[in-house]
């Protein structure tokens, strides 16, 4: 990066440290924080949407829809995360490529031949000749979808519980005013359920933050991968040889995670206070008393 860093083995002290911390690999490390934050920013709303859809389905009066919503939550929550991230992603990838092969390959060849999965090169996602960036983006997309699917199942349960927690009397009153079922859902149930859902959703958010190291199982290089890779002892084969420094890198991550989760807690506390305003709950009552 800097001209002084051209020959890392000849420099020492502060210059060495500065060159070391700005090496190409460290820059990749710093970018991986952005990767993780982007993953969180995309996954959280997507998981919430899936949870909302799942919870709505689980409350449906149509039996097949109800079964679908409930079995989604039950199945996905029952499978260990690590199994999900190891096998589901490969299956999803192969499923996508199989569907594409039906469209572009012509022949109806069955791709699962023994241990191998073979589709014609045109059906590969992304194509073999695509830029490395596309491969990374595709892997990242699979990761977002898988995370959203897993956390959506937990969110389904949380939101389902929150929906049933809204006092029945409120819903009955709305019906008595002549609102249709959809109107009751939209105007009364959904606005009021968030206050009951928030503690559960807050928990999920915290778990999601800590689950991001699973990204590496999906081929996305995250901060934990880089901390392990950069911290490991380096021989003279590397430009910057050093002993085992994993402790320092992981301490850095510890600080990052703690700062991030404590910031999240503060935001969640604010949202909670906002949602409780005017609610017929103990927290809402406390707010009312504090205001008068």
């Amino acid at each position, binding site marked *: 990066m800097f001209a002084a860093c051209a020959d*890392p083995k000849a420099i020492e002290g502060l210059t060495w440290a500065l060159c070391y911390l700005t*090496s*190409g*690999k460290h*820059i*990749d490390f710093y970018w991986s924080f952005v990767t993780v934050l982007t993953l969180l920013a995309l996954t959280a709303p997507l998981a919430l949407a899936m949870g909302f859809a799942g919870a709505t389905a689980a409350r449906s009066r149509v039996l097949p829809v109800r079964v679908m919503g409930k079995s989604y939550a039950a199945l996905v929550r029952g499978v260990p995360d690590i199994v999900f991230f*190891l096998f589901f992603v*490969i299956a999803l*990838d*192969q499923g996508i*490529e199989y569907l594409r092969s039906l469209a572009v*390959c012509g*022949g*109806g*060849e069955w791709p699962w*031949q*023994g*241990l*191998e*999965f*073979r*589709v*014609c*090169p045109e059906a*590969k996602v992304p194509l*073999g*000749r695509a830029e*490395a960036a596309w*491969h990374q983006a595709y892997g990242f997309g699979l990761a977002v979808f898988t995370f959203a699917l897993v956390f959506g199942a937990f969110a389904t349960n949380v939101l389902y519980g929150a929906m049933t927690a809204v006092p029945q009397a409120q819903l009955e009153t709305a019906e008595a005013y002549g609102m249709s079922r959809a109107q009751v859902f939209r105007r009364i149930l959904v606005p009021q359920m968030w206050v009951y859902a928030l503690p559960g959703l807050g928990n999920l958010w915290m778990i999601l933050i800590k689950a991001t190291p699973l990204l*590496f*199982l999906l*081929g996305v290089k995250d901060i934990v991968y880089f901390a*392990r*890779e950069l911290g*490991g*002892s380096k*021989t*003279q*084969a*590397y*430009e*910057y*040889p050093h002993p*085992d420094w*994993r402790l320092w890198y992981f301490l850095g991550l510890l600080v990052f995670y703690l700062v991030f989760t404590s910031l999240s807690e503060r935001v969640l506390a604010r949202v909670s206070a906002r949602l409780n305003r005017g609610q017929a709950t103990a927290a809402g009552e406390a707010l009312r008393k504090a205001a008068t």
Partner: protein
Amino acid sequence: MKKLLLATALIAVSGAAFAQDVVRLGTEGAYPPFNFINDAGEVAGFERDVGDELCKRAALTCEWVTNEWDSIIPNLQSGNYDVIIAGMSITDEREEVIDFSQNYFPPAASAYVALAADADLKGVIAAQVSTIQAGYVAEAGATLLEFATPDETVAAVRNGEAAAVFADKDFLAPIVAESGGELMFVGEDVQLGGGVGLGLRSSDTELRAKFDAAIQSMKDDGSLNALIELHFGPETAKF
């Protein structure tokens, strides 16, 4: 019967049409000096040089991909890359699931490294998961302690978690040399595996033939030996 013939014909045709424009090389990137991610964040090491040269000789466009060691074979079979070039020894067990090119690194010794000369080699031995060394430790009657990356196996010895680490001697040699006397080789070397080869899907016979020819040409003109000496030093076994 007709359907069967049709299917066979289709497979044959699609096989012929399987001309790859880009060959993706999968490596671990954590096994110096075979392969590692250098400080610029790129794949480097012996296998980087060999792979690039092989692709040049076989007139292939190649691209490097890193993948965790543990899932490196399933991802090859799933088609996420076309070649494994990751210091993988040729063994019968692996031959059952994938095919190997001829070796580009001769059958090498594996060795134990410990903190003290009297380390108990029947005690807890660290090895990387799914390696021939891990298999050997398990069969030798010692207690096997497996780690996901090679670096962690050495760290386990340094912090006393394991009595010794068992790995490729060529991987351990620079670590021992630079440890300032802290680490040392213990016990006898063990010959394992049939050398290091490229791993390919069993169905990719055409690609394997191209790489076999390229490796042979590098062996014939001595350029492979030169690369081995460059990365592993003059004492390493050569062709």
